């Protein structure tokens, strides 16, 4: 009896040993930074010129400052708007392309080629991509030259001085960069659906629209929820594209300033206190939004 027990325990031990690498990496790169961020958020700690101020314990003053100046709501709104502007076309085209690619009856040619091409924009560095758009859509950039010479507009259009033009450009860039990735994820989900269901539907005389909306979409729900949540978290952390496109200002009038760009502003003075408080609030916002999406998509059943 005793021997048997000890054998079970010793196997359990191996389970824990196999977990060590994950635990170590998690502790060093996730948990410790997380705790120190929360810890830092209670201190006044920044650098003025070459003089270090703090760290002095100030309690919740940093949080109070962030909440009372009201900017946080504006920047959350900006971030969500730019994310939605990119996400809607992204999910639409991904579903469409995914359905086409996985439909054996279409017999698409050069599938591998197109799959590679739609994924390619994701391989370009986001900042390089933003820099490219910044130059293309400059007041006297090539896009304006083409539009003027074609007679579409008489005066160069100032893309970067127009609130919705700037936001749309950011959304468009995110769409171009990420729809290939989403297509691949959705295709994986679609290919996991039992082929016999499609065959049965075909036998019953369902149209391809009916097949898509009655079979593919409902069975794709878990993957869709995953895509939605990862994209939402990625969207909340949007930084490099708007940062480069607006030269860090979030202009016009800070309407394209995202939460992380705002966080980055505090790096100028190495303001760990305020930066920490902002990070914690970002963490909470992300948590709440993810929870809402998760509940919403699961309860509909």
């Amino acid at each position, binding site marked *: 009896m005793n021997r048997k027990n000890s054998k079970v325990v010793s196997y359990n031990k*191996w389970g824990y*040993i*196999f977990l*060590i*690498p994950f635990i*170590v990496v998690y502790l060093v790169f996730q948990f410790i930074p997380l705790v120190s961020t929360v810890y830092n958020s209670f201190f006044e700690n*920044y*650098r*003025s*010129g*070459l003089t270090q*101020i703090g760290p002095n314990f100030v309690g919740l003053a940093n949080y109070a400052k962030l909440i009372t*100046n009201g*900017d946080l709501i504006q920047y959350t709104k900006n971030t969500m708007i730019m994310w939605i502007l990119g996400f809607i076309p992204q999910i639409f085209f991904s579903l469409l392309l995914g359905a086409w690619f996985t439909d054996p009856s279409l017999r698409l040619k050069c599938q591998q080629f197109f799959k590679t091409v739609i994924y390619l924009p994701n391989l370009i560095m986001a900042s390089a991509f933003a820099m490219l758009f910044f*130059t293309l859509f*400059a*007041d*006297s*950039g090539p896009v304006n030259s083409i539009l003027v010479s074609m007679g579409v507009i008489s005066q160069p259009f*100032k893309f970067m*001085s*127009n*609130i919705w033009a700037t936001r749309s450009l950011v959304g468009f860039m995110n769409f171009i960069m990420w729809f290939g990735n989403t297509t691949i994820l959705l295709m994986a989900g679609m290919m996991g659906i039992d082929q016999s269901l499609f065959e049965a539907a075909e036998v019953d005389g369902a149209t391809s629209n009916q097949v898509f909306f009655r079979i593919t979409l409902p069975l794709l729900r878990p993957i869709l929820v995953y895509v939605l949540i990862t994209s939402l978290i990625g969207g909340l952390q949007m930084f490099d594209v708007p940062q480069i496109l607006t*030269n*860090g*200002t979030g*202009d*016009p*009038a*800070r*309407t394209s300033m995202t939460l992380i760009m705002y966080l980055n*502003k*505090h790096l*100028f*003075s190495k*303001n760990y206190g*305020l930066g920490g408080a902002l990070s914690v609030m970002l963490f909470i916002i992300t948590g709440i939004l993810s929870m809402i999406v998760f509940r919403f998509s699961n309860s509909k059943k």
Partner: protein
Amino acid sequence: MSKKLLSVVLASAMAAGVLAGCGSTPAPAAAPAPAAEEKKEEAPAEEAKEEAPAEEAKEEAPAEAAADEGKVLNIYCWNEEFKSRLTDHYPGYEEVDATNGKIGDVAVKWNITPSTDNAYQNNLDEHLLGQEAAAADDKIDLFLVEADYALKYVDTDYTMPVADLGLTADELANQYKYTQDIMTDSNGALKGVSWQGCPGVLIYNREAAKEVLGSDDPETVQAAVADWDTFVKTAADMKAAGYSVMSSVNDSYRVYSNNVSTPWVVDGKIVIDDNLMKWVDDSKALVDAGETGTHALWSDDWSKGFYPDGKVFAYFGPAWLINFSMAADTEGSIANAGGWGAVEGPQGFFWGGTWIAAAQGTDNPTLVADIMRQLTTNEQIMTDIVKADSDFVNNKPAMEAAAENDEYAFKVLGGQNPLAMFCAGAEKIDLSNLSPYDQGCNEAFQNAMKNYFDGNSTKEEALDIFYKSVVEKYPELTY
């Protein structure tokens, strides 16, 4: 049993993997050793040859090192300007590659970080704060600062008084006083020197002047831009002929901001001077009339006017803008064809200026002192800089003599000699309203006001954005 063995092996492999991540440094060092030994055996003759000169060098080294301190000179700066000055004019400087040079047997290491987004200062600050702990060869020896943030470094212990380097007041007597005022700390010690003076002028496009004003003669042009009212009238004429009076509203910013009566920050509170609000109102009027743009300085849109197709009448700038930034080396630019002219413009101003400062703790004080001496006090070298690079140098008697001398005519200005104008301007520069916050405030003010000019926010909203972004940069300030 075999299962158990397998799991032991796997677990230890994994543990080894984790540990290897922590302390992998000794491992690679051990690996190449055998290879190196093999090479030795293969080519003993070569090895011997190589060793001989190396040993000789070692024997010489101690004698020199005593006289001539560190073997590495670390220079921190934000563009190629100082490097080209040193390469072209410092006796004995040899270029090795883009970021390395040599002076005698001292290796010169250039650490060039662009100043955009404060990157230069961030990098410099990190290294200055780590200066004490750094190895002698890694210590910053010399760094450059600009007028906008010179005060941030002057009144600290990170800069070394030039007197400690052996530069005497007599040697520096020919320099313009303002260049020394700015670098003098609260105890009266001079902390840095400059080879250039940066009084600004209005740089005009001769072609546009001929077309619109009837003549590119400096007197005619000066009459058309003598004060802001006539400047606005000229702007309307320029627009009628298809020219922008200046590339962007930010071009005239310095002209207003140098003529303020209060510094940006008084007792920890941000103050916006009336003259800056005048810039806002004047600029808004110009933008609304479609007579100039709102893009940032240094942007592609801004520099379009360096070429004839850009259709820009004027830029405001000091000598370095003309010679260093206006694409004078590019075929087809206005500067390349000598198509600019210079006049005093509506108001005097200055812009920028680069100061050489020695970092506290440098291991090459003699060499640093000599660089300062040669570039900022050696009249021969300084006049060479004027001739070769069309810069305005920090040597009053030499410049006043050169102003009379046609030899010093600027090619980019079509043979005009603007030195007299610069001399007069340098005398008038007043730096009493500088603050350590200038760079952050100037940048934030221009960025914020762009929203007002573009019609995306009201003046009050734009000011609010300005205050916000300044407080983000300097949390200790209030408004």
